[in-house]
């Protein structure tokens, strides 16, 4: 078995194990198999309700959002050929959250529910598009543009919080900005699923183009891979995946930064070979982080986005350390 196949096999096993653990973990002591079987047979037991309406949506969203975050990180890093690219670091998640908060704050989402994911999608999409336009200036410009987008969305989000009339509403927005799956529902799964799946399919389809791009834009184009076509697929794929994730779970950062970095030594440097392992790794990381926040360590439940950021920041520092002294 090649090292790539072994990596994929181990990660798949890990994801499955964590998914089962995620279904089993919770305060109510219920049997997972019993609950699943009740649910599938339409028996309205307590176990079936807890599994079907609480734990299964939460597990599904952690798995899918984690996978698309890992995947979009790997695709973005391949596209801009820069290991610092990540939807969170580059402000894409922040702009998605801004879009969602604006719709939430103005009450539009109360009148028309699909407005929330659509606004998150638009925010993420606009941010990615802007970054791509600026990417032509190279690595330094890209990272600076990402920082600018991140600061802008943070400032505008803070402004919204500042202006929010009731403490309850500001608590709602805060809770969601930090990223959480604690209130994941079946409806959330329905809202996020199409974007997560279509976005992932688009991102997976870029593998060969990303490989060709390692030789530079000109050579890739002469081999039949026009840069524009790859860029569009990555932009739309990232916007759909990250936007849909943000719409239901809020901002969850650094998964896309951490996973490609950890897996590159195992999966090899070919960008196409990094996509699937990064998706699996992202799913495993988010499932594990979501299990961790459910541990009864302190009085309050930790927020998911806080945990992933705490895991991700050291990796970010490590990348910066590796890149220091290199010409930009």
């Amino acid at each position, binding site marked *: 078995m090649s090292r790539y196949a072994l990596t994929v096999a181990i990660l798949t096993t890990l994801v499955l194990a964590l998914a089962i653990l995620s279904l089993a973990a919770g305060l109510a002591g219920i049997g997972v198999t019993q609950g699943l079987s009740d649910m599938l047979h339409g028996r309205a037991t307590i176990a079936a309700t807890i599994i079907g309406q609480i734990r299964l949506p939460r597990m599904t969203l952690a798995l899918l959002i984690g996978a698309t975050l890992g995947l979009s990180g790997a695709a973005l890093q391949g596209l801009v*050929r820069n290991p610092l690219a990540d939807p969170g670091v580059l402000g894409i998640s922040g702009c998605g959250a801004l879009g969602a908060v604006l719709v939430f704050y103005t009450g539009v989402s109360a009148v028309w529910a699909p407005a929330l994911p659509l606004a998150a999608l638009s925010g993420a999409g606009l941010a990615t598009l802007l970054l791509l336009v600026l990417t032509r200036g190279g690595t330094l410009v890209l990272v600076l543009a990402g920082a600018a987008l991140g600061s802008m969305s943070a400032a505008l989000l803070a402004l919204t919080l500042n202006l929010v009339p009731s403490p309850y509403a500001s608590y709602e927005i805060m809770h969601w900005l930090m990223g959480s799956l604690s209130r994941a529902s079946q409806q959330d799964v329905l809202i996020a699923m199409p974007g997560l799946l279509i976005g992932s399919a688009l991102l997976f389809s870029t593998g*060969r183009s990303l*490989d*060709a791009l*390692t*030789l*530079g834009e*000109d*050579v890739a*184009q*002469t*081999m*039949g*891979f*026009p840069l524009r076509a790859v860029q569009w697929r990555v932009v739309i794929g990232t916007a759909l995946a990250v936007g849909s994730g943000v719409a239901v779970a809020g901002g969850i950062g650094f998964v896309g930064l951490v996973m490609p970095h950890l897996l*590159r030594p195992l999966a*090899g*440097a*070919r960008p196409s070979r990094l996509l699937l392992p990064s998706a699996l790794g992202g799913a495993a990381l988010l499932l594990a982080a979501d299990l961790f926040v459910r541990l009864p360590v302190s009085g309050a439940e930790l927020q998911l986005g806080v945990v992933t950021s705490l895991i991700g920041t050291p990796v970010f520092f490590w990348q910066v350390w590796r890149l220091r002294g290199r010409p930009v």
Partner: protein
Amino acid sequence: MILQTDTISLTLQGNRLLNDIALEVRPGEVLGLIGPNGAGKSTLLRVMAGLLRPDTGCVFLDGRDLFTMPPEERGRHLAYLPQEAPASIGMSVRDVVALGRLPHRRTASAQQDAAAVRQALDAVGMSAFADRSSASLSGGERARILLARALAVQAPVMLADEPVAALDPAQALTVMNLFGQYAAQGQAVAVVLHDLALAARFCTRIAVLSEGRLVGIGTPAEVLTDALFAEVYGVAVRRCGEVAVPWSLVASTRRP
């Protein structure tokens, strides 16, 4: 396959870079593109590779318009080796060379791909390095695996932009020999060169560009005259046997 440019002109940001250039690269020949810095050699090569669309005129590959050909098909017919190497490719030498097979992904078998990669690695003398990471290579070695990548396409037309600029004399001779062998198999090769001795030695024909115009084309003996050196490069040469060595600057009305 024959690659023709039909009186192409190109203006970018107000600068006239190419002016009515008509030439062809024929199967079995190495066409050298020479000229002073800024003459438009690399720009012309990029137009010939389909990377820049000329304002007027066309590029034809066996009579078909290059710019309307499906990208994947064009990728199989034409290999392009740019002057600048990509900053860093972490993958193994074999994987880098195998990227040259991407245009064939729907038309060639895995065996054909593997054979093409092996052949290309052999040709540049890098077979022993196949499993090494390309990040650990010297500049000259990296230039050779990027050449191997272009060879692995096995395209009927090869376009190379200053492929020997970063190489020592022995490696430069090896690479020029490779282009000669490639052409001898019936492929058409166009190479941008600054080293006129290499151009004289290895090119079947030479095209001379100056200020975006084609000022001469023919065999090395026809083209590389003392008058050309004085007129186009502003230098006087001394001849050592067949080789002309730039010796001193000449006062020219065109070049200060």
